């Protein structure tokens, strides 16, 4: 069951629902009574959030690919690619992107979800393969409409000695899920899965990750931060599976959320499922309010209460931003986060 299958068949019975344990906090079946028809392709004039960085660009409008829907980085090649998933009409649409990084290739994938005008229901599937010794950094900015429903699912397959890093930044939608499934071979491969959700009004975001360590000597590092105000709802589901024999796995998962109103909600399910003996795994999970003492400290020095809160909240999310390796993308991400947190007000 998935949103993309439901959209393709028009059968609402195929939507994920709360009866599926993995979807209990992101029920689509109860939300969507009728699946809208798809909309035609359109041209879009504005540029994406990563435009300043340049590189090749692939655009989907209402699920229609304007360019090829495959990115291949050849051995030894270094590529920066922007992919933009844009919805311009109230419609239902699906898109698929294949990404392949051949041995020793390097890719920076700058991915954006844009809904400039109307809310839509969209499902995006990414098939990502980074072969032996390849490197990929994926940075996702999801700026959906408040009434949008979006599911983005990435299946990531990694070769020996590959490096895969991603940072998901989202302001949520009516319902939004960004899911990443990683088949981790061990073998000196390194994975970083980070994210931040900044939710206001009645927005929802669900960051779900499943990493399966299938071999020895693999590392995974995860850091997700959330800031939720008003009646926002953040969901973090992080699962790390260490299969039998995947010894010397080093896996660390952190999820930390700030709740800035009484009616905001954060649901977190960090899971470490360890079936090997010789592993180092840890997870930390905290959900709390801003430190009132720190706010008073900043106010005693002269900052207004709004300024103090914005500073502390931006710093809280900054830890995720600082881990982005691509310089240009990191600063664009930082500006974006600062704008979201300043603009949300109190």
């Amino acid at each position, binding site marked *: 069951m998935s949103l993309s299958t439901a959209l393709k068949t028009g059968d609402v019975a195929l939507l994920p629902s709360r009866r599926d344990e993995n979807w209990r906090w992101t029920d689509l079946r109860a939300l969507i009574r009728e699946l809208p028809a798809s909309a035609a392709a359109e041209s879009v004039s504005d540029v994406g959030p990563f435009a300043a960085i340049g590189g090749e660009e692939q655009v989907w409008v209402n699920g229609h690919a304007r360019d090829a829907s495959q990115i291949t980085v050849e051995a030894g090649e270094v590529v920066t690619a922007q992919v933009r998933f844009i919805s311009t009409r109230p419609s239902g649409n699906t898109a698929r992107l294949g990404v392949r990084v051949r041995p020793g290739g390097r890719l920076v994938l700058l991915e954006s979800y844009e809904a400039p005008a109307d809310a839509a229901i969209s499902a995006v599937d990414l098939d990502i393969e980074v072969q032996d010794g390849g490197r990929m950094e994926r940075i996702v900015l999801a700026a959906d409409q408040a009434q949008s429903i979006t599911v983005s699912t990435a299946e990531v397959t990694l070769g020996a000695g590959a490096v895969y890093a991603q940072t998901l930044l989202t302001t949520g939608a009516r319902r939004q899920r960004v899911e990443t499934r990683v088949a981790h071979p061990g073998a000196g491969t390194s994975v970083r899965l980070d994210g931040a959700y900044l939710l206001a009004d009645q927005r929802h975001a669900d960051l779900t990750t499943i990493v399966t360590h299938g071999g020895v000597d693999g590392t995974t590092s995860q850091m997700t931060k959330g800031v939720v105000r008003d009646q926002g709802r953040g969901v973090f589901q992080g699962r790390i599976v260490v299969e039998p024999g995947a010894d010397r796995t080093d896996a660390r998962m952190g999820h930390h959320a700030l709740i800035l109103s009484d009616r905001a909600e954060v649901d977190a399910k960090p899971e470490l499922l360890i079936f090997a003996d010789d592993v180092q795994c840890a997870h930390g999970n905290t959900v709390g309010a801003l430190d009132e003492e720190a706010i008073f400290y*900043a*106010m005693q020095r*002269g900052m207004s209460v709004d300024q103090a809160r914005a500073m502390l909240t931006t710093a809280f999310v900054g830890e995720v931003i600082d881990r982005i390796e691509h310089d240009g993308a990191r600063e664009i991400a930082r500006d974006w986060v600062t704008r979201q947190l300043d603009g949300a007000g109190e």
Partner: protein
Amino acid sequence: MLSIKNLHASVADKPILKGLTLEVPAGEVHAIMGPNGAGKSTLSYVLTGRQGYEVTEGSATLNGEDLLALEANERAAKGVFLSFQYPLEIPGVPALTFIRTAMNAQRKARGEDEIAAPAFLKLARETAASLKIDFEMLKRSLNVGFSGGEKKRMEIFQMAMLSPRFLILDETDSGLDIDALKIVSAGVNAMRSPERGMLVITHYQRLLDYIKPDRVHVLSAGRIVASGGPELAHELEAEGYDKYVQVAA
């Protein structure tokens, strides 16, 4: 300068200050000494506007302006500075960014222009040097991983940068070794001026060997129960607070 009259204040409905009256004229340094639980820290928080500290009676004014009606940041902009007993760690905010944001917020509140970056950095470098603070430390997250002495030095650094009109030092000597105490005291003494008043809150007389007060007050059970010259601090050190605790009771 600072004028406190019959101040009553409660925390969680429990009365802590019970009719405190105190005048600190410009140019003077007054020390407040007292046993644990006397209300010393409460006084510093009430004067600086911390939430949860409710004034039930009395007044506190700075140069005739009512402090108690103002938000904490407005009081800061009027020139009230509190050196915290336990300075907060602010992860992800470099010390320089924190102070510059605070300084510009104060300036804006007073209708002044923001300080230009070169002028700010010059001031920061000079001030850091005078307090023997490594400038690189100011690029790190404020107080994160700093020792107790380094945190107190950062408080004095912020004080010197913001150049307030009235200073409140809450147990500034706690956690300081003798070398750090000398540096911190020299930093505070450098700020003594005819236009500026200071309230030095301390449990022990030791700090007052380095920051010489004009007047010493004993705070016990929420009121000033005795006042005198610097010799009062020595008397307290020798004899303890017992007789004042009884007076208050």
